[in-house]
């Protein structure tokens, strides 16, 4: 049973690695391409995975950020993500995990309710981003955000740590009507 732990290996020099976990390969690939196209001073490495646990025979670099991609159109992807969450060590959730929900633009096709993902993100105390990768205008800003988050989680931005970023992002998720 291999559990992903942060900071368990030495970081590569000037390298930042992100792991995208999701069931839709094409989507992950699109995101990965957009991210790699971004102009960034550090070297980016994008790993794609359908689900965790990852095969332990590979020699892979230290993972700095895990983004769980949930497609709101398919309940299977949500279940897949929930399953994979169990293979992640608790210390990862101090800012190095995020959730990305896609397909929120087409309400009619959504079989997973938006509040489910919101609750999931709140339970795990991690930031939630929304993205519609078919629309080109959305993809680039999301990729930029991801790159920035990745840089911070990898420790490439002096003065800002992943936990710091987490508490910065938290202020936007103030009590909703569900809580009151």
């Amino acid at each position, binding site marked *: 049973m291999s559990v992903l732990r942060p900071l368990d290996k030495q970081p590569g020099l000037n390298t930042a690695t992100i792991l995208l976990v999701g069931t839709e390969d094409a989507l992950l690939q699109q995101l990965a391409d957009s991210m790699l196209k971004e102009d960034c001073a*550090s*070297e980016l490495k994008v790993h794609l995975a359908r689900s965790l646990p990852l095969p332990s025979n590979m020699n892979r670099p230290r993972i700095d950020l895990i983004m769980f991609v949930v497609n709101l159109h398919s309940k299977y992807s949500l279940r897949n993500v929930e399953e994979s969450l169990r293979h992640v060590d608790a210390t990862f959730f101090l800012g190095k995990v995020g959730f990305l929900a896609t397909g929120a633009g087409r309400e009619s096709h959504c079989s997973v309710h938006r509040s489910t993902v919101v609750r999931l993100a709140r339970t795990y105390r991690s930031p939630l981003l929304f993205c519609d990768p078919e629309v080109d205008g959305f993809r680039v800003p999301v990729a930029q955000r991801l790159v920035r988050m990745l840089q911070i989680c990898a*420790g*490439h931005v002096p003065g800002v*740590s992943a936990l710091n970023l987490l508490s910065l992002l938290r202020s936007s998720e103030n009590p909703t009507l569900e809580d009151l």
Partner: protein
Amino acid sequence: GGGEGEPPQVAGAQAARPEDRLTLLLRLRAQTKQQLLEYKSMVDATEEKSPEQILQDKQVEAKIEDLENEIEEVKIAFEMKKLALDRMQLSTALKKNLEKNNPRTSVLMDNMKHILKLNKLIMKSHQESWDLEEKLLDVRKKRLQLKQASESKLLEIQTEKNKQKDDLAVMENSDKIKAIQQNLQMEIQITTVIQHVFQNLILGSKANWAEDP
């Protein structure tokens, strides 16, 4: 931040100009420092683990929120300290700058004098408005006191009037009753006298009532 507009192929070994190399080295240095900090804090965190296992769900939530609030407070304290330090540094730099330049003719001095003047004005206006508010408060208090005094006086007047009325009524009643009683008694006496006179008349006339009506 990270995006410095450097071409992404910096990692490759090329005949780079010394400035590019230096920037790269400095950046890598900053990176490594930050990463070292992260590892250190991780080590510190795992050292002070307090294993209170099996907390209830609600308790865990509350504990998490407490810890998050702690983080926020620490961040705020740190920012304040940094701000204070920056201010001190700024003021010393300013002082040194002023000592170097001719202090009479710089725009900075004019600005500062203006700032001081405005500050004095602000403080004076604050003080004035404070005094006015105090006066207003005093006037209101006095008005309230006067109102209360007049209220009590009116109340007194009313009770006095009521008492007077009551007394008068009682007295009148007793007066009337006495008068009535006196009259009654007089009437009774008169009637008694008349009765006696009649009786004596009848006896004196020696007439026989029964025979001669």
